[in-house]
């Protein structure tokens, strides 16, 4: 069994983004998805700081610090892109106009709760940014994360132990082991890495899973 690399997870997410989709890629891991969108497929990237039609990073030396993404890295604007202010930008999110957002996570629960903003450690300095708006705003929320923590604990859990970002908001989970749909009756496995058995995946997962092609309850 070979775990997906970060880039392989990103490529897997990119497969599920159709032409014409309005998409927000969260800071960190999800940013990688941009590198895997097929050329020629027109996809509209939204950045919370007031950009629609965000393009790739500029060439070295061509950075414009008035044109940055949510992670404050320099980006470019595609032909046909537009700028707007923060209330309009978050109105797009909250109003359900984004088809997909892709976010990182500490934990996702069986019910689709998301925890990705705060470890809950008492001395941690909290910071939330736009995560809570994205979690509840996009039509579909894709989570991209390692299946387990470095110490081997499952990040797909029965109940989140970390503070929540949003309640019942996740649509689909992409990990280095599998792709999992969050449905009303539970977590449905969509695909797994080659050589991994369903039993092994269940062993690596705290929350109960429903196998691919299993009959609906």
């Amino acid at each position, binding site marked *: 069994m070979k775990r997906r690399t970060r880039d392989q997870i990103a490529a897997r997410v990119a497969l599920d983004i159709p*032409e014409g989709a309005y998409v927000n890629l969260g800071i960190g891991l999800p940013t990688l998805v941009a590198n895997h969108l097929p050329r020629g497929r*027109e996809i*509209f990237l939204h950045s919370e700081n007031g950009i629609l039609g965000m393009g790739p990073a500029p060439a070295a030396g061509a950075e414009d610090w008035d044109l940055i993404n949510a992670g404050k890295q320099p980006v470019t604007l595609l032909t046909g892109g*537009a700028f707007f202010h923060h*209330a309009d930008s978050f109105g*797009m*999110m909250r*109003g359900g106009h*984004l088809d997909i957002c892709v976010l990182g996570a500490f934990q996702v629960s069986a019910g689709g709760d998301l925890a990705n903003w705060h470890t809950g450690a008492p001395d941690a300095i909290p910071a939330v940014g736009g995560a809570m708006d994205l979690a509840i705003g996009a039509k579909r929320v894709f989570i991209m994360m390692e299946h387990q923590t470095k110490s081997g604990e499952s990040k797909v859990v029965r109940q989140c132990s970390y503070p929540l970002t949003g309640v019942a908001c996740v649509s689909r989970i992409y990990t280095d082991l599998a792709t999992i749909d969050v449905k009303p009756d539970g977590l449905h496995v969509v695909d797994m890495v080659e050589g991994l058995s369903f039993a092994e995946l269940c062993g690596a997962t705290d929350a109960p899973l429903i196998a691919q092609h299993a009959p609906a309850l």
Partner: protein
Amino acid sequence: MINKIVASVADALAGVRDGATVMISGFGGAGQPAELIDGLIEQGARELTIVNNNAGNGDTGLAALLKARRVRKIVCSFPRQADSYVFDELYRSGQIELELVPQGNLAERIRAAGAGIGAFFTPTGYGTQLAQGKETRIISGKPFVLEYPIHADFALVKALKADRWGNLVYRKAARNFGPIMASAAQCAVVQVDQVVELGALDPEVIVTPGIFVQRVVCVPAHIARAVA
């Protein structure tokens, strides 16, 4: 390649069902999508709820839609005008329902729908007939009324120019309800004077980004019926 430009007014209006809520931009004639309204009459959907600032003038446009008996209810701020006789007659004979909304509450309720706000407290209308039966609250010593968003199935909007992604710019005070109605509808249908190449609209100047627009139809100004 994404191309939101459709070939005809009929294509632009495909799928409007009986009972739909349809927003129509415009303040007086400015920003009124006259050809889309004509197309809606032709399209034939009935029992519509119309959201517009007014309730039609003379015998054309919205008044013609009313006259054709396609409208069950109208949500607007200013139905009574010198030449609103079509509406007046239907209203007086109980053949149309009216929800009268102060203009700023109308605009804010439409904006709230587009921006995902569940409800908001507005000072407008407090203590008046138009707030009767509505929840009120004193906040920081000032009285407010709770108002809810107005969502629509379709918005018919008039803009000046569009590109194939649906980015829009408007002309002068014809902008009025267009940008917020486009944001509040499941399907925003826009009539423009001119379709331009992608990139022809300055990204600083686009008023409605394409994310709010589903269909665009070009009705050049020299073909469009003059509205006043």
